[in-house]
């Protein structure tokens, strides 16, 4: 207790001494005088008396020194002195300091920004209670569609929920439709249908009102819970929105609750309307209806692995009677699901930025070692004056830490623009974030700055202090830093070269992938193509629907600047799957269960509008009217899968569930692949039908594509007006150009590529600077030796070669290690290649050539300087 008090006083004493030195001194002098006076009284002569007093009570200087130590905290004092000294050193060597600080700022800034993104996407808690216990459950469909995570069906959800032993509960959600029409302009709202236990599984509480009950879900009550965003936007954040009746899909629904602002859930951050799933008895028996997301909460104590094994086994059992091939289930943590590919790319980028920082540290360590050698005289003086090894090391370390601290401050300034860029990387499935320098990020950057300071400062500190104590003052500074420190510096160079090679190679592989993605043939011409969605829930009757769609397209085509317009069930390149089984003439029903094709309903002008190309046969034309013998167009995947080596034209297939009532479709054309599911998604067999012949299924051509001669966004208002002139309550949703869709899908790979290439170039630059630094230092250090060798007959060519060889040997060693590491890295990054296999050899070859030429340059400059050494001057260089 009292010693804590002492400590605080001493701390205070260091910061603002209450009693300064003169105060202490005055007290001591008085003591001495009084002692002397007493000696005089005892009969000594005044001179002798003073002497005797001094002997008896001790010296003033020593007493002052111990008083000072007692007054403050000596180590804090030393620290302050070291920091001041370090700052002076930094000011004295502006070139070295600015290089060091700039290098560190780059390293720390980039790492800070990357960490803030990783923190937002992968670390920060999700807005659900105990979110780490939440998982998604998928069908393992590798055997059939090749997809590891396929949507499950309502009956699977029901069976899993009833029989599983590992979850407290499982909730299901399905896509929903919600077109709001009574409150301002008609609008299509993103909606999901969820089971009543969805809320308890997530542990979500509404901000206002309540969520729906089991009973409401079971009877399909028309109640909805709305998002915070919708509440603000359409209902003016009014608290009496609860219990208000709104019109969705032309039906009255009662708003019963509003969710908090931070709530979101798969598959998108902007779901506005949550309605009861209300699975009918028929739906709960429909084993072919694959559109369900299942989310579950692990029971306490159950691990992910146990849950996965138990669910896989359970699923095999419950699906056996219903699927041709029993299907396992896949359990994925919700966090991983939400972060998706962004998670792996962020981790890759964080690793890359860490490697850049490491290279920066290695460089600085090298620089400091070189400088420590230069400064060893100064250090030796300090050692001779009584500085212990601990104090010397502390002083070296504090210098590095001060550098790191300054680098961190500069780095934070640099991090902010990088963070703005990274915000766009946050996946669409998660809430939008604004990355800020909050305390976690600041703590992280303080941590890495300290780590960096210690990393690059420790070795030179140890080395510098050791040498100072061993060699002392007598060493004339003739450059032999010793084989040991050369060895160490060389190891550093090899390390940083290897890291640079890894970064360059990964960058090259990502670049290849990105080029590949960009040059993918989309199957359609994306420029000047406007897309939007007109939900057709108001036109349930087939004839009215066909009439409306045709009228709508007619009106849109009449707008000036429009070249053509067509409709399709899903806007191309959006991932909304809509697939069904099919059966070819002559096949059995059992085979159909193994065959899935995407199904699209289009208008006759659709293919012409998007600029699709024909492989063989024909597109739809005016002869394809409503008929008992409809026609179909298939894509190349469909043709290749079912008709290898022969033409599918004229072949017939049946569609949907294998009933006898279905039409037989005749294939009249094969279209070249259109990437209907997304730029980076795999191609799948696809069947296109003309909407006028699609009366037997619910497929609705609600996605509209418009080819324009003018800037597509300039006609949006005219398009809305044209559609509302037919039906003023028709929502027009998700207006975007196809170029935007493509750009958004390429955003993650393009940013990955941009950032990793930037990191790779930075790494290359730093590594070559490091090589250059070490070699030029060696040249400076060995000037004497070079002089001797030249005096003994070595030509300047020999000298040039000997230095270049050394640099190149280091580079080659780094290259060899780097290539091996890069192969490992490439394997870890596989998911970032989007199924594309970038070619490794050319990437490595290009990287090697770049690295070797840069390294050659970095070696050549100092080696040439060495070869130009004048032996006479060199030998006088003492």
């Amino acid at each position: 207790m009292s010693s804590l008090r002492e400590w605080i006083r001493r701390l205070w004493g260091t910061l603002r001494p209450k009693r300064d030195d003169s105060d202490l001194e005055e007290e001591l002098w008085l003591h001495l005088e009084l002692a002397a006076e007493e000696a005089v009284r005892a009969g000594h002569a005044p001179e002798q008396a003073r002497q005797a007093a001094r002997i008896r009570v001790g010296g003033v200087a020593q007493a002052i020194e111990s008083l000072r130590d007692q007054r403050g905290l000596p180590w804090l004092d030393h620290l302050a002195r070291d920091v001041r000294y370090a700052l002076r050193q930094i000011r004295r060597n502006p070139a070295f300091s600015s290089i060091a600080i700039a290098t560190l700022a780059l390293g720390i800034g980039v790492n800070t920004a990357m960490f803030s993104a990783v923190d937002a996407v992968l670390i920060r808690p999700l807005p659900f209670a105990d979110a780490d216990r939440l998982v998604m459950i998928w069908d393992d469909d590798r055997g059939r569609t090749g997809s590891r995570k396929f949507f499950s069906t309502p009956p699977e959800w029901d069976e899993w929920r009833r029989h599983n032993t590992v979850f407290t509960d499982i909730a299901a959600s399905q896509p929903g439709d919600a077109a709001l029409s009574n409150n301002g302009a008609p609008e299509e709202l993103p909606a999901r249908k969820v089971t009543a236990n969805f809320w308890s599984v997530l542990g979500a509480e509404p901000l206002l009102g309540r969520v729906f009950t089991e009973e409401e879900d079971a009877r399909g009550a028309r109640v909805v819970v709305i998002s915070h965003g919708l509440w603000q936007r359409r209902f003016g954040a009014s608290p009496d929105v609860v219990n208000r009746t709104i019109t969705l899909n032309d039906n009255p629904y009662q708003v019963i609750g509003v969710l908090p602002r931070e709530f979101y859930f798969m598959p998108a951050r902007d779901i506005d309307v949550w309605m009861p799933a209300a699975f009918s008895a028929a739906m709960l028996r429909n084993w072919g209806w694959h559109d369900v997301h299942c989310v579950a909460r692990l029971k306490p104590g159950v691990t992910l692995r146990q849950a996965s094994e138990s669910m896989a086994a359970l699923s095999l059992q419950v699906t056996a009677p219903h699927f041709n091939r029993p299907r396992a289930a896949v359990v994925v943590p919700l966090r991983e699901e939400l972060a998706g590919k962004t998670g792996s790319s962020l981790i890759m980028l964080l690793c890359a930025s860490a490697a850049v920082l490491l290279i920066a540290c290695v460089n600085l360590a090298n620089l400091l070692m070189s400088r420590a050698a230069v400064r060893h005289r100064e250090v030796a003086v300090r050692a001779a004056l009584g500085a212990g090894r601990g104090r010397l090391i502390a002083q070296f370390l504090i210098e590095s830490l001060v550098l790191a601290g300054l680098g961190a401050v500069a780095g934070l300034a640099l991090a902010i623009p990088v963070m703005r860029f990274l915000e766009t990387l946050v996946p669409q499935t998660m809430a939008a974030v604004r990355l800020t320098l909050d305390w976690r990020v600041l703590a992280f950057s303080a941590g890495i700055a300290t780590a960096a300071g210690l990393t690059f400062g420790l070795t030179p500190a140890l080395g510098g202090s050791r040498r100072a104590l061993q060699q002392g003052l007598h060493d004339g500074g003739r450059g032999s830093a010793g084989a040991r420190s050369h060895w160490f510096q060389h190891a550093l160079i090899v390390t940083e070269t290897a890291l640079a090679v890894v970064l360059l190679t990964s960058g090259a592989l990502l670049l290849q992938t990105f080029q590949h993605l960009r040059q993918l043939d989309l199957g359609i011409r994306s420029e000047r193509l406007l897309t939007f969605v007109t939900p057709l829930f108001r036109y349930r009757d087939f004839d009215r629907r066909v009439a409306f769609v045709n009228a709508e397209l007619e009106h849109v085509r009449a707008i000036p600047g429009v070249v053509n317009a067509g409709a399709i069930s899903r806007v191309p390149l959006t991932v909304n799957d809509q697939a069904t089984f099919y059966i070819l003439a002559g096949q059995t029903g059992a085979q159909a269960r193994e065959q899935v094709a995407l199904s699209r309903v289009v208008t006759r002008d659709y293919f012409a509008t998007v600029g699709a190309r024909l492989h063989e046969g024909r597109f739809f034309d005016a002869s394809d009217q409503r008929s008992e013998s409809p026609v179909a167009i298939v894509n190349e995947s469909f043709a290749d899968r079912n008709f290898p080596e022969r033409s599918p034209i004229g072949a017939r297939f049946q569609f949907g569930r294998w009933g006898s009532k279905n039409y037989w479709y005749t294939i009249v054309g094969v279209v070249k692949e259109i990437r209907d599911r997304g730029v980076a998604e795999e191609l799948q067999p696809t069947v296109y039908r003309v909407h006028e012949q699609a009366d037997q299924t619910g497929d609705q051509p609600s996605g509209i594509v418009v080819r324009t001669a003018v800037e597509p966004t300039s006609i949006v208002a005219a398009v809305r007006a044209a559609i509302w002139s037919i039906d003023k309550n028709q929502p027009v949703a998700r207006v975007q150009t196809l170029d935007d869709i493509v750009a958004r899908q390429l955003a993650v790979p393009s940013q990955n590529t941009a950032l990793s290439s930037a990191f790779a170039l930075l790494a290359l630059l730093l590594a070559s600077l490091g090589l250059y630094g070490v070699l030029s230092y060696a040249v400076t250090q060995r000037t004497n030796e070079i002089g001797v060798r030249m005096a003994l007959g070595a030509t300047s060519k020999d000298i040039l070669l000997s230095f270049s060889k050394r640099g190149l040997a280091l580079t080659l060693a780094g290259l060899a290690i780097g290539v091996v590491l890069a192969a490992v890295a490439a394997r870890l990054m596989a998911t970032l290649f989007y199924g594309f296999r970038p070619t490794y050899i050319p990437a490595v070859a290009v990287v090697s050539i770049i690295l070797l030429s840069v390294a050659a340059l970095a070696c050549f400059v100092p080696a040439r300087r060495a070869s130009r050494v004048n032996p006479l001057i060199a030998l006088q260089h003492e």
Partner: protein
Amino acid sequence: MLLQTLATLGPLHGYSIAARLEQVSAGALQINMGTLYPGLMRLEQRGLVRSEWNVTDTNRKARFYSITAAGRRQLAAEKAEWDRMTTIMHALLHDQS
């Protein structure tokens, strides 16, 4: 020791503390300035004594130290502890034989 001196004699400056200790110990205890003043400073930092500049009877400016209430408590505690120790030591060294 320092505390006891201050407790008995009231406020004193450094030299008279040293003189008093020397006198009481009959010259056996000569205290160096380098020991005395840091010791006083530590006691002050712990709040056991306080000090202020004042004028001596010979009209000199000097820093006078005086014991605080906490100092008295500490003194009592230490004295008790010391007595206990000496009793034990005494018992060990003399009564055993």
